[in-house]
């Protein structure tokens, strides 16, 4: 069975005068896909969603809905938008209408349904989101979670082919998040195509069949939840999933500011509440391996990258030291005492090659 492509995104770029959230986005969304879009803030997740239904038209590139270009200047934009519902972070219910009127309005105005048809359908939808008794309330009389459920019902009333969720639970009280996610989960089970920008990782893992990890203005990694959450292929995805905190120092001179780097390591430890022992061990690695061993080894023009990665998720610290020049054999060339100290401070020492082809030590800190 071939999957039916619903949305094709090709070379989409969105640039503002001082920031470019989308550099080059390419993907295809198939019917029945439930895609969670994750990634650090400011990486264009919402912008991508808003480009798809032209709330923010892309600067360049094309987006096709069922092979019809929504980015074409002469397209029937409002007709194409009817195929894609959108649920907003801030709900955006029409404040001057009751709950049921909010739901009835668009089908009556745009699909030519009779009031009775729209009402019956509206009440049915309200029952599925559990809010039939609020039909005659105004939006300002509802809680955030209730508002978002009404917003979903309003979107469903237009019978869209897919729904775009723009951080649907970010503006909610934590106790109300569950009720909204439950409604989305049910929609997923019914086979609704959905694109969900979310920060709820567990929810994303459970409900989606695909995950977009967005970073660097593109879909950095696209895969199944297992791939993204268990075995991320790319470095930034891994950092994001492991919630990695980074510290990086580049040393290019023999006369570098030694005290400043030692101080930075202390500060890094304080900032992420690392144990004094770990901080001491990091200092040992820096001193024994970088300062005492690799720098003299590199001679007059050193080129050394010292990086600490602390994973908040697994509470583990890794130090990566990349250096130019020939590989250095620790066991053979290193001073005995220094090597003993290094061994003492780490649980494992591995060597590798970086993406640039430089030699690298990877040390897991005790």
């Amino acid at each position: 069975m071939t999957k039916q492509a619903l949305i094709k995104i090709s070379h989409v770029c969105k640039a503002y005068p001082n920031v470019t959230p989308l550099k080059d986005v390419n993907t295809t969304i198939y019917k029945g896909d439930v895609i969670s879009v994750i990634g650090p803030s400011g990486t264009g997740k919402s912008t991508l969603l808003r480009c798809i239904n032209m709330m923010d038209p892309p600067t360049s590139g094309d987006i096709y809905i069922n092979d019809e270009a929504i980015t074409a200047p002469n397209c029937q934009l409002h007709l194409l938008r009817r195929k894609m519902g959108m649920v907003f972070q801030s709900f955006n219910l029409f404040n001057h209408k009751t709950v049921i009127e909010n739901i009835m309005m668009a089908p009556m105005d745009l699909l030519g349904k009779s009031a009775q048809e729209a009402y019956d359908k509206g009440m049915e939808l309200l029952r599925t989101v559990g809010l039939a008794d609020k039909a005659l309330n105004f939006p300002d009389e509802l809680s955030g979670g209730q508002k978002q459920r009404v917003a979903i019902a309003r979107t469903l009333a237009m019978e869209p082919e897919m729904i775009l969720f723009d951080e649907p639970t970010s503006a909610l009280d934590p106790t109300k998040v569950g009720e909204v996610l439950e409604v989305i989960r049910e929609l997923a089970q019914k086979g609704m195509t959905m694109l969900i920008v979310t920060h709820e990782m567990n929810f994303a893992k459970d409900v989606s069949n695909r995950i977009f990890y967005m970073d660097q203005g593109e879909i950095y990694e696209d895969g199944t939840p297992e791939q993204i959450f268990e075995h991320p292929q790319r470095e930034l995805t891994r950092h994001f999933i492991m919630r990695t905190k980074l510290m990086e120092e580049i040393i290019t001179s023999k006369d570098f500011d030694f005290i400043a780097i030692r101080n930075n390591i202390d500060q890094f430890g304080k900032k992420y509440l690392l144990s004094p022992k770990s901080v001491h061990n990091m200092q040992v690695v820096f001193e024994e391996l970088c300062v005492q061993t690799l720098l003299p080894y590199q001679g007059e023009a050193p080129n050394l990258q010292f990086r600490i990665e602390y994973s908040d998720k697994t509470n583990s610290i890794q130090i990566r030291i990349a250096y130019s020049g020939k590989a250095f054999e620790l066991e053979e060339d290193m001073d005995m005492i220094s090597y003993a100290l290094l061994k003492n401070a780490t649980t494992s020492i591995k060597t590798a090659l970086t993406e640039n082809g430089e030699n690298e030590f990877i040390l897991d800190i005790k």
Partner: protein
Amino acid sequence: MQKKIFSLLIFLATLLTLLPCFAANEEKSFKTLNDFSGARFSTLNGTVADKLTQSVIPNSDNFVYYYTVADGIMALKSNKVDAFVLDDPICRLAAARNPEVMVFHEPVMPDQYGFAFPKGSPLRNKFNTVLRKFSEDGTLQNLRDIWLGADESKKVLLKQDWPGKNGTIRYYHDYLVEPIVYVGADGPLGLEIDLALRIAKELDMKIELTKCEFGGLIASLQSGKADVVSGSMSITEERKKSVDFADSHYKAALVLLVRNDSYVASNESFIDSVKASFEKTFIVENRWKLIVDGLLVTILISACAGIGGLFLGFLLCMLKREGSKPVRNFINTFIRLLKSTPIVVFLMIAYYIIFGSVNISALWVAILAFTINFGVYAAETYSTGLDTVDNGQREAALALGYTPKQTFWKVIFPQAARHFLPILKGDFIAMVKETSIVGYISVQDLTMVSDIIHSRTMEAFFPLLVTAMIYLIIANMLTTVLDIIEIKIDPKHGKRTVKGVKMQ
């Protein structure tokens, strides 16, 4: 609402009782003109009486200015000033009607009135020829006897029954100076108007009368609205710099009107005095008809400007929000310019400069000026209202598939209306009250009518209170209507139900 009116009346009554206390001042006695040195003077706005007085009485620069004779007399009676300086026919008539004041026995200086023309007008020589003839055959003396006399029945104007082959004279005149130029039961009356009609007859020209504030007379000549003006206008060197005068048709004098110390107030009861005031204000000369006419003019201007302004304001608001950059800049400048111009100044500019050379009725200019003025305020108000609607509302409607136009009318406008209507209501009521200045361009509205009446009755309080009362009633009626509309569009008003649907 009754409660509101009642408390307002109590407030006014308290104010009136307190007024004399504030005005109390030590009495001085005046025997000769020189005794007035250092006294407090008053005169009418736009006259030269202050300059002439200062040239005769030393230390007499403490002047205040009023718009009407009646106001001046009120100030004199309530001891706000010591002397009211004006031409003697006016002062004598005032003294005859108000036993509390009298003309001081020594005149300040002789004075003479003339008709004024635009610089170099050929009409002036024609007037002079006829004036010379009237002076020789006694017509002029005869007219003076009639208009300064007490026999009201003789004070009738000439009917314009001559063919008028030589064209039409546009004649602007003051209307608050009985017996020279004033308004009677059937329209303008007075010595100068009668004289102007007779001169026009001699010249076989028709004459078109227009009432105008004294302060606007010279402007109406300079803007080309009028061919000739008068209003007991003194012939002075300073005025001669901007206009030409015909030979004087009236030798007058500048006199002082002072309080009559020997006057003892009669024991007339309050009810009787109100009755008398009511009689004078409404019944005599069918003055209530004037009030009704004035009221209709006020309502006409308010209604037209209100409706026109709502549409104009909407147009301006949309251009300001959706127009291209030059259009937006233009509209913003236009709005800023008009908002910072006092409406009375704008009205005069519109009448004397913009429409200076166009033959358009002052009423239309007033309607137009108030439409624009209200439109400018309404534009800002709409804009404020539209700004209060969150952008998310627009996005939600667009995302559902509404077109931008449908989005505006179905979602944004109804929500904005709840915000701008209360402000618009205030703007509108303020505008209705502001129409009271149309008298400046000779439109006879409610306020001008009240001026006309109190210039005749020499009584300020009663006509003013009546006018205030009428404005109060109009404003309250409007407020009530607008309140009802406001409640009607409140979505939370009334029973919660879904229209046209069998509810589950």
